[in-house]
């Protein structure tokens, strides 16, 4: 992986680039290489389980919110890979066996989306929300994305709806996990 990273950095770094631009390319390639590998594994498993479309829909719904809502992040890429396999292909496959009433699903989606909008954004220790301007910027994006996501939810065929809900629920879970971690750390800090 390191070899591929270095090769790509050398290939895409031009003489005309400034030092900051070089850093951006290096950082961008490092992220892309690690992400492409993870996506390949997750989608290969999804393909084997026969739930590729379902995983894609769940992933899109999750990432649309994830990018602006933040929330819990695994500490290492390996943990993230295991988490992604459990939370996407396997959970999606299990969801295909669950039958849920359409009205109940709409209410669940709306409620979870409202909760996400209320709780987000939740920065982590390593990648925090920088200041009020940053928080406001993210909050505005969250409102817009939540409205668009619910609009898309209303337009999709009923067989695919549970996977949009699953994506939203996963993001809600990440937010709650991060809030729990922060509360636990505060309590431990106060006790010590």
């Amino acid at each position, binding site marked *: 992986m390191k070899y591929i990273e270095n090769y790509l950095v050398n*290939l*895409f*770094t*031009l003489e005309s*680039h400034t*030092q*900051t*631009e070089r*850093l*951006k*390319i290096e*950082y*961008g*390639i*490092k*992220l*892309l290489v*690690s*992400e492409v590998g993870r996506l390949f594994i997750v989608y290969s498993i999804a393909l084997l389980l026969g739930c590729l479309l379902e995983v894609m829909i769940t992933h899109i719904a999750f*990432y649309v919110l*994830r*990018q*602006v809502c*933040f929330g819990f*992040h*695994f*500490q*290492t*890429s390996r*943990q*993230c890979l295991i988490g992604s396999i459990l939370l996407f292909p396997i959970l999606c496959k299990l969801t295909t066996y669950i039958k849920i009433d359409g009205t109940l699903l709409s209410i669940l989606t709306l409620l979870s989306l409202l909760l996400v909008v209320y709780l987000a954004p939740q*920065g982590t220790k*390593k*990648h*925090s*929300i*920088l*200041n009020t*301007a*940053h928080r406001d*910027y*993210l909050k505005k994006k969250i409102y817009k994305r939540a409205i668009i996501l619910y609009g898309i939810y209303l337009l999709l065929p009923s067989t695919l709806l549970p996977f949009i809900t699953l994506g939203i629920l996963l993001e809600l879970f990440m937010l709650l996990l991060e809030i729990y971690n922060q509360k636990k750390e505060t309590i431990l800090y106060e006790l010590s």
Partner: protein
Amino acid sequence: MNYLKTMIKNISNLIMSITQNDMVYVCRMFAHEEELPEKLKKEHPFYKG
């Protein structure tokens, strides 16, 4: 050859814009143990201090 050079330049710009976009959201999409380099943090539109 020129076509290849232009293509490399375009991909280079694309990678930079991905980093720029990721920086705005403070790397939430991808980064795990990879922390944003200090110098790039200063490029963040909301970075102060």
